[in-house]
C-alpha cells in the first residue's frame, strides 16, 4: 500500500524495508521524547532540558533522510495539468528537462551541504561559487570541530573523538558536526536517487518525477467501494 515502487532484487527489498523502518523509527522517537517530557514536566516538575533540541534534530533527520526515499517512490507533489495534455514524445522531453533541473538542484544543494558541514568536521570546504573547483586551504577559522550544540550533553562513550576533533579539549555538549552530518548524507542520497530516476525516464521505464496528488496511495484502498459496479 505504501507505494507503487517495487524493489527488484533482494538487496533492493532490504534497502527499501530499511528506509521505511528508519523513517518510522525517527518519527516514533520524536513522539516519545516529546510525550515523555510533557509527562515529566506536568507530573513531576522536571524534564530533559535537551528534549526539545533532540526532537528538532530528529525532525531534520527525518526529512533529510526521507526526501530521497520520496524521489525513489515518486511521492513528491507536482502539477501534471500541462504534461498530461501533450503528446507522449513531448511528455518524455519535458520529463527529461524536469529531471535535468532536479539533478542540478540536488547537485547545488549537495555542494552547499558539504560546504556547510565540512568546517564543523574540521574538513575543507570546496572552492567555487557554483561548481566545486577544488578544496579550500584550511585557515585558522576553518576548524570548527569545537562548535557544540546548545543543550544536548556529550555522551561519555564518544570521549575518544575529543583528541581527533577538539584538540584534546573536553566537549560539554554534542559537537555540531554529528547532528549536521545528515545534511551532506541526505543530499548525496537525493542526488543518487535523481540520477536513478533520470535513467529510468531515459530508458522509458518511468514517465515523470511527480505524483499529481499526495493522497493517491491512501485513496487506492477505498476507491473500489465507489467505482461504478
Amino acid at each position, binding site marked *: 500500500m*505504501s507505494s507503487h515502487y517495487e524493489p527488484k532484487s533482494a538487496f533492493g527489498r532490504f534497502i527499501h524495508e530499511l528506509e521505511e*523502518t528508519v*523513517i*518510522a523509527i*525517527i*518519527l516514533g522517537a*520524536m*513522539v516519545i521524547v516529546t*510525550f515523555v*517530557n*510533557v509527562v515529566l514536566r*506536568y507530573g513531576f516538575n522536571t524534564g530533559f532540558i535537551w528534549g526539545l533540541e533532540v526532537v*528538532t*534534530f530528529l*525532525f*531534520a533527520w*527525518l*526529512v*533529510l533522510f*526521507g*526526501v530521497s526515499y*520520496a524521489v525513489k517512490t515518486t*511521492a*513528491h*507533489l*507536482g*502539477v501534471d*495539468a*500541462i*504534461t498530461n495534455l501533450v503528446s507522449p514524445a513531448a511528455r518524455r522531453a*519535458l*520529463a527529461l528537462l*524536469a529531471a535535468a*533541473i*532536479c539533478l*542540478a*538542484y540536488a547537485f*547545488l*544543494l549537495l555542494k*552547499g551541504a558539504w*560546504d*556547510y558541514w565540512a568546517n564543523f568536521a574540521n574538513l575543507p570546504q570546496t572552492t567555487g*561559487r*557554483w561548481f566545486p573547483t577544488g578544496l579550500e586551504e584550511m585557515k585558522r577559522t576553518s576548524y570548527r570541530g569545537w562548535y557544540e550544540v546548545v543543550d544536548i550533553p556529550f555522551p561519555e562513550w564518544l570521549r575518544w573523538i575529543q583528541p581527533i576533533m577538539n584538540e584534546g579539549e573536553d566537549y560539554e555538549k554534542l559537537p555540531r558536526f554529528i*547532528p*549536521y552530518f545528515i*545534511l551532506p548524507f541526505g543530499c548525496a542520497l537525493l542526488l543518487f536517487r535523481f540520477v536513478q530516476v533520470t535513467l529510468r525516464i531515459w530508458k522509458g521505464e518511468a514517465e*515523470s*518525477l*511527480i505524483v499529481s*496528488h*499526495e*493522497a493517491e496511495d*491512501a*485513496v*487506492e484502498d*477505498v*476507491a473500489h*467501494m*465507489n467505482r461504478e459496479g
Partner: protein
Amino acid sequence: MEVAILFAMVIGLMLIGVPIAISLGFSSTIFLLVLSDTSLASIAQSFFQAMAGHYTLLAIPFFILASSFMSTGGVARRIIRFSIALVGHFPGGLAIAGVFACMLFAALSGSSPATVVAIGSIVIAGMRQVGYSKDFAAGVIANAGTLGILIPPSIVMVVYASATDVSVGRMFLAGVIPGLLAGTMLMVTIYVIAKFRNLPKGEWKGWREVFEAGSEAGWGLFLIVIILGGIYGGIFTPTEAAAVAAVYAFLIASFVYRDMGPLAGKNGAPNLALWQKPIALVTAFVHRDTKDTLFEAGKLTITLMFIIANALILKHVLTDEQIPQSIAGMMLDAGFGPVMFLVIVNVILLIGGQFMEPSGLIVIVAPLVFPIAIELGIDPIHLGIIMVVNMEIGMITPPVGLNLFVTSGVAGMPMMRVVRAALPFLGVLFVFLIMVTYIPWLSTFLPTTFMGPEIIVR
C-alpha cells in the same frame, strides 16, 4: 522586476513537471547565486534550519501522525455513525451528516485531505447507496473536507503562526467560530437544496442510537477535549498537544477500538479483548500496523516539509532582497486602506492557491503581507484566518487542489467532474470568505476574550 522573473520561473518549472518543492528551491538558489553574495552553504543552512530551527513546525508531523492513527484505527467510522444518528433524519440527512462528520473529524485532524479521505471514503459510498447522485456526494465532501484546516487543530495555522510569530494557541481559538459557521452554512445549503429537490432522508432511530453511537465515538472525540483542554488548561504547548494527540490516538486505536494492531481480528474475525492477549501491551508498540502508520505519516511529513523548507529558501531570497519592505512601501504609498488591502490579499492568495500547496504558499505570502497588515492596524489573527479560508478555496480549485485530487480518488471519478460537482458549494465558501474578511469579530472574539487582545511586538 527581478521578483516577477523569480515567480515566473517558479511557476514555469512547476508546469513542465518539476516537483513543487524543487521549483521553489531551484529558482531561489539561482537567484541567490546571481543577485546576492549568499553562499550555497547558507542555502543548505536554511534548509536544515527549516526543521531544526522552527519549533512550531514540529506540530506538523505529530498532527499528521495523530490523524493517521485515527483513520487507520476506526475513529472515522464511529464518528460517521454518530453523525447519522444525530442529523441523518433531516431532508438531505446523509449529506448533512457527512458535513457534520467532517466537522468532527476536522476537530481531531490538522489536515483537509486527511479529512476527505477519512470521512469521504465511507460517506460517499453510503450516500450513493441511499440514492444521492455521485456528483452531489463528491461535491459535498470535497467542500466540507476543507474545514480540516479551519477547525482547530490545523497544520496551515501552525505554519502561519511559525511564519509570523503569532501564538499557535491564539490561532486555534480564532478558528472555532469561523469553522462552526462555515460548517453550518454548508449544512443549511444542503437542507435548502434537499427541500427543493426532494433529496432522500434517513429515519430517526431514536435517542438510544444517538447515545450508543455517541459513547462509541466518544473515545475518539475525547481527543478534542485533550487537545484544547490541554493547551488552554496549561498542561502543554500546542506543539506538545500534537504529540500527546498522536500517543492518545495510538492507544485508542490499538487498545480501545482495536481495529489495528495485535488485537485486531484478522479476516473478519472479531477483535480480541486485551485480557485475551495481554502481551499486546508490549507488542502493540512494534506491531506491523504501528510501524506502517508511523511510516505513512513520516512520508507525508517528508513531502510536505520538503515543500515548506524550499519555500523558506524562497523566503530567504525575498528577505535578502528586502522585497517585503518595497512591496509594503508601494502599497502604503498607493494609499490603500485596510479594505482595499484585504481585497488584494484575497486576490493574491486565490491566484496563488491555484498553483501552490497551502503551507508553502503561506510561508511565502505571510512575510510579504504581514508588515503591511500591522501598519494598517489589521489584527494578525484576523489576517491569519483570512489566509486559511483562502487556502480552503485553493484546495478545491484546479489545477493544484489537494481536496479535488483526493476526492476524485476516493469517489473514483474524473477530476474535472469533481470540479463541477464542487462548484455550487464553492459559492458558499466564497460568501463565507467575504464574511470572514470584513467581520473581524468572527475571528478575534474568542482569542481576545480568553487570551486578551493580541500583542503586537513588531
